[in-house]
């Protein structure tokens, strides 16, 4: 119907090109029919013929907004700032958000709220609440249900774009994750035929900064699933607040958004030390976690559970029973080849001149990904200083990076010092055999 109307209106406008109201009407109909480009064209035509036409300006701004020409829209909004109707104000706020001018957006949004106290807009709320603005704290209710990606729950659902191919090295770990949790999701029938039960999770452990979080994210990206990351503070607050409810809510959120990767970072924080456990009722959180993981009350179909820790020795042994984190994987510092890949990736888009990545990789034994980043940061800072004083851009060379290597000690050494002790003296079920192998200790 719209197309027919548009065609007729177009004909009419062609017959009387100077008829401003008619052309304006055509543009507005086009806007409604989501033909934004044409609408924008007609609005500008109107403005040529009737300079300062408010309706045309508003229409043009809206058309620009939908064409994602936010800065163009912003210019128009700024021009007519004082005579904006409420819907236009909301659009203005959205434009400002897209252009990252939070402060202005907040100011404008406050005007909207002043005019319409009960006004709500999910998209804006999400952005402004993320920026930590206290104005909207009334939103803070226990609402974990969320609606797809735009949910405004406390635990942010992400949709990672990283794939396994973005992760340098870690071939063994990728394989393990693939066979344990990705393939069952992709070929459920095959696994059923072999009578292999799916479910359970993977516990990743290793020195800090070696990409445990990154590979978890990439797992979600690889299978195009959503990703929920639960950090140290979230875990700690389970001890403090109404813990079991929160934990249940997290799992429910993941189940509703299946397929979903649920990632617990620093999971060892969930189990306090043995002495404390005896005295208090802290066992509750662990029990709740385990029963959620076992899927006692509701099925965990499509929910992949990953956990990471720097201190596997502090993880409650009950976590490692079959059906739970029955696969425990050591994420070791990148080997020489992986370091080459990582360095090459990090140095992309940076001003460099004939870098010998292999030589640097050779010199950086035991360096984690985060350490390599630190090395590059040191080199970049040096070069920035030089460039500023000489006024000419100085590219980074192999020598600068080697200097950075000298200045930065690998942070994994400290971790290995204590890991070595655990592997030597507390390796009861062969749990730390990978560490022994990595350290080349034969027992």
């Amino acid at each position, binding site marked *: 119907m719209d197309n027919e109307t548009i065609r007729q209106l177009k004909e009419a406008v062609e017959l009387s090109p100077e008829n401003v109201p008619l052309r304006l009407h055509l543009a507005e109909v086009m806007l409604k029919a989501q033909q934004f480009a044409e609408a924008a064209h007609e609005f500008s035509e109107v403005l040529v013929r009737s300079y300062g036409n408010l309706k045309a300006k508003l229409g043009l701004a809206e058309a620009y907004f939908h064409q994602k020409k936010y800065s163009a829209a912003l210019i128009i909004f700024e021009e007519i700032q004082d005579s904006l109707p409420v819907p236009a104000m909301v659009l203005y706020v959205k434009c400002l958000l897209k252009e990252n001018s939070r402060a202005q957006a907040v100011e404008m949004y406050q005007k909207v709220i002043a005019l319409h106290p009960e006004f709500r807009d999910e998209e804006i709320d999400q952005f402004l609440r993320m920026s930590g603005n206290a104005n909207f704290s009334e939103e803070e209710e226990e609402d974990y249900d969320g609606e797809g990606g735009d949910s405004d729950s406390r635990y942010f659902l992400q949709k990672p774009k990283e794939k396994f191919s973005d992760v340098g090295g870690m071939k063994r770990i990728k394989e393990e994750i693939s066979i344990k949790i990705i393939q069952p999701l992709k070929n459920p029938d095959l696994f059923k035929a072999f009578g292999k039960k799916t479910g359970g999770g993977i516990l990743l452990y290793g020195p800090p900064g070696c990409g445990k979080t990154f590979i978890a994210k990439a797992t979600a990206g690889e299978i195009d699933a959503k990703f929920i990351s639960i950090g140290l503070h979230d875990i700690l607050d389970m001890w403090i607040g109404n813990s079991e409810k929160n934990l249940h809510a997290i799992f429910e959120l993941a189940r509703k958004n299946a397929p979903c990767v649920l990632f617990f970072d620093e999971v060892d*924080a969930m189990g306090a030390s043995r002495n404390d456990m005896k005295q208090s009722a802290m066992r509750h959180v662990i029990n709740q976690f385990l029963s959620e993981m076992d899927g006692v009350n509701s099925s965990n179909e499509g929910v992949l559970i990953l956990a990471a820790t720097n201190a596997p020795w502090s993880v409650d042994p009950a976590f490692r029973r079959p059906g739970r984190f029955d696969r425990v994987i050591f994420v070791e510092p990148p080997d020489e080849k992986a370091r080459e890949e990582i360095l090459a990736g990090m140095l992309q888009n940076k001003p460099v001149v004939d870098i010998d990545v292999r030589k640097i990789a050779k010199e950086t034994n035991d360096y984690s990904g985060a350490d390599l980043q630190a090395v590059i940061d040191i080199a970049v800072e040096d070069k920035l200083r030089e460039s500023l004083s000489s006024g000419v851009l100085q590219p980074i060379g192999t020598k600068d990076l080697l200097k950075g290597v000298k200045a930065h000690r690998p942070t994994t050494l400290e971790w290995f010092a*204590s890991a070595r002790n655990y592997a030597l003296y507390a390796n009861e079920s062969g749990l730390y055999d990978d560490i022994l192998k990595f350290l080349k200790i034969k027992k």
Partner: protein
Amino acid sequence: MPDTDVLIQRAHLLLSQGRSEDAVKQLSEVLHADPNNDHALSLMGRARFDQQRYKEGMDLIQRAISQEPTESYYYYLLAFGYYNMENNPHAQLNIRKAIELHPYQPDYFGLWAILLLEKNQFSEALERANEGLALDPENVSCLNARATALNKLNRTDESIDTMKTVLDADPENYYTHVNVGWNLLEKGRQREATTHFREALRLNPRAEAARAGLKQSLKSNIPPYKWLLQYSFWLNNKGSVARWAIPVGIYFGVRAVDYLSRNASPAVATAGMIIVGLYIILALGSWFINPLANLFLFFHKDGKYALTSGEKWGAVLTVSALVTGLTSLGIYFFLSDGVSDFWLVAGILAISLALPLSVLEFPIQLSFRNVALKQLLAMAALLIGLIWIVLFFTGSLTPALFQIYIYIIIAFTWGAALSR
């Protein structure tokens, strides 16, 4: 502003999980909002203790005390800090204050007993431990202190009973196993001690005290090492004056025997020679037994991982110097024509080099701040030894210079022994 209560609770949890670094982050936030929060200050102090930054931790606890001078727990923490800084008198002062303020906490008595044990006041320590146990008969630190005190007082049966009780009360406490291990080692039961040190390491692989104990108990399998260890236990249980008076007394006793036997009948002279010879073996043995025993650990399946790289270096270098020296002396006695004393001098130089090497701590740091006197002496002696070796090989070593060197080395052995 974030809720300080939640932050403090988080910090508490983090501390109990041994995540002191994360706890410090939470606490800094609290202190940022409320710089005089005594609870946060004391927790921050505990976190610094965990990181073995005792000085900082004690400063924080002092601040907490100035806010809340009637909280006994803060004085207990302060006493604990002083204990770790090896300031026993101040530690005792503060633990007394804590008990004055709140006499119903058994852990306070446990710490006090440990402090008294350190000062060799065994029966007082036993009394304090018993007072604490009257409040809570299963308190682990009081039970441990009681067991050690009884052991030192030679009431071995009671001590073993107490150790059994404490192991029953909490079999997974690594500290108890370490304590039991030391008590057994002192009684010369190194095999049982080894199992307890192993268990302690299994429970807490990072416990340095357990690793040290494991090394001692393994080395005690070598009889001479065991004797010397028993001797040093015995010496340590004497008062602080006796600790240096006894070795000096023995030395002068031997010198007197030596002097008297020279002018006596041949039979007495032989007996004197034997005594002097035994003494020389003992004295040299006390220098070299530790690196030799460390070398023995090299070939033990657990021992080789317990050694630090510094100990390995010390053992290898000392033993190489010793072997070189003894070989040279052997050549001198068996092959030499008696005219040239090349091999004799070479042997003495090499053995003298082994003396500082055996007490030197590796890796050698070339800064002179915060270095123990003994280490400085050993570094100096090693340097002088190397200079004399250069002189020897360039042929410019005169008998007078050699004599000076011997005096230097003797001075060094006395200096090093007394600077403990």
